[in-house]
């Protein structure tokens, strides 16, 4: 018995230790006895040797105790370095990558459809932008500086294709953008803004009616915020519109309602719609509705949505700022849709 555990020497302690050991021995004997009874009962009842009846299978399933192998005798990463031939594309793929490769190769599984859609979108995007290039003759001079960021922007838009973070305003815009709805969403990059050179003049016009559109110095992209975005002044917006659409471009919507009064009626519905569409202008509308000038036009704004379609696009930018209180008026929703189709 180990006596090293005794903290102090003395008659009491030795007796105590002896006692402790005695108690321990009793406990161990109890355990042994319990086991004996258990075994004896098993023997007499006949179930003690039940797991040893079949000598053959016992040899077969004996526990293996070799290095590099588990207790069943299997090698752990036997298939890691093997290569398998894909039945579809006949390529040799590593075993651990085989399942994901098959998923994509056969076109089944969750991710493969997503990727395929994305690829389709890129192809559409590329073919569409190539046709657009010829339209923007006046921009070709500046191609060299903007060319790089066009590629970057496309990559960014690819990323946002199938992700749930697709910009919400797309849903509203779908009516407005009419024909270009297939490619427009892919160019519409919520995060970084739009590169104007890939858009046709119609699209640029329609974009400018709803957005700030000021081209940023560093990224050369159009600002996608509302007409009242605090980063850019109206002067900048006017300049951009002049630059992009030529001298015939409409004047910028101003805060004060002292603009051409004849153009008030028609685009009202559309600009209301544009006000409504833009997600980050809810804070703007209350301030606008406070202005008395805007309030007069509210009730009139429920005009028919389909007047002169061709000019709508041009003039839509005009009164955008005026009827700022459109946040409360939901009826003008259809006006923007009609106007965008013609534009």
């Amino acid at each position: 018995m180990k006596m090293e555990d005794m903290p102090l020497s003395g008659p009491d302690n030795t007796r105590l230790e002896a006692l402790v050991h005695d108690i321990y021995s009793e406990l161990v004997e109890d355990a042994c006895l319990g086991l004996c009874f258990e075994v004896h009962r098993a023997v007499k009842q006949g179930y003690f040797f039940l797991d040893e009846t079949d000598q053959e299978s016992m040899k077969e399933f004996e526990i293996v105790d070799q290095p590099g192998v588990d207790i069943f005798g299997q090698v752990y990463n036997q298939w890691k370095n093997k290569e398998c031939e894909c039945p579809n594309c006949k390529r040799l793929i590593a075993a651990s990558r085989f399942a994901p490769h098959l998923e994509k190769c056969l076109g089944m599984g969750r991710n493969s459809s997503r990727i395929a859609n994305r690829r389709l979108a890129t192809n559409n995007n590329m073919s569409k932008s190539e046709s657009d290039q010829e339209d923007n003759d006046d921009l070709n001079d500046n191609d060299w500086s903007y060319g790089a960021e066009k590629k970057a922007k496309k990559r960014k838009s690819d990323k946002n294709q199938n992700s749930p973070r697709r910009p919400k305003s797309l849903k509203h815009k779908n009516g407005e953008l009419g024909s270009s709805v297939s490619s427009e969403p892919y160019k519409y990059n919520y995060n970084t803004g739009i590169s104007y050179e890939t858009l046709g003049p119609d699209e640029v016009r329609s974009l400018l009616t709803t957005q700030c559109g000021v081209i940023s110095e560093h990224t050369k992209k159009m600002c996608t915020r509302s007409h009242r975005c605090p980063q850019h002044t109206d002067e900048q917006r006017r300049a951009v519109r002049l630059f992009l659409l030529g001298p015939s471009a409409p004047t910028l919507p101003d805060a004060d309602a002292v603009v051409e009064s004849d153009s008030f009626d028609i685009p009202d519905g559309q600009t209301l719609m544009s006000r409504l569409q833009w997600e980050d202008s809810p804070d703007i509308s209350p301030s606008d509705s406070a202005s008395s000038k805007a309030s007069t036009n509210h009730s009139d704004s429920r005009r028919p949505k389909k007047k002169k379609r061709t000019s709508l696009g041009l003039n839509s930018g005009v009164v955008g700022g005026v009827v700022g209180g459109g946040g409360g008026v939901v009826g003008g929703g259809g006006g923007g849709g009609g106007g965008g189709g013609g534009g």
Partner: protein
Amino acid sequence: MSKDSQMRAAINQKLIEMGERERLKELLRAKLVECGWKDQLKAQCKDVIKEKGLEHVTVEDLVTEVTPKGRALVPDSVKKELLQRIRAFLAQHATL
């Protein structure tokens, strides 16, 4: 000495009354199963049975053959832990 035996009896009684003995027994059993002691001892029992014959083996046979081996086969760690717990109990509850 009767004093000694009295003391022992008192302590044993206390152990049982407070349920500590049961707890210690369960703890020991669990530890012995964990460390494989039970299987080792069962193998010993098998030998004894094969020796004495399946029909005629008695409990006494098993006990006398197996218990000393059992006592010896208890791993040191288990033994230490149990001794410690008993000592702790005595330190707490024994009045000397």
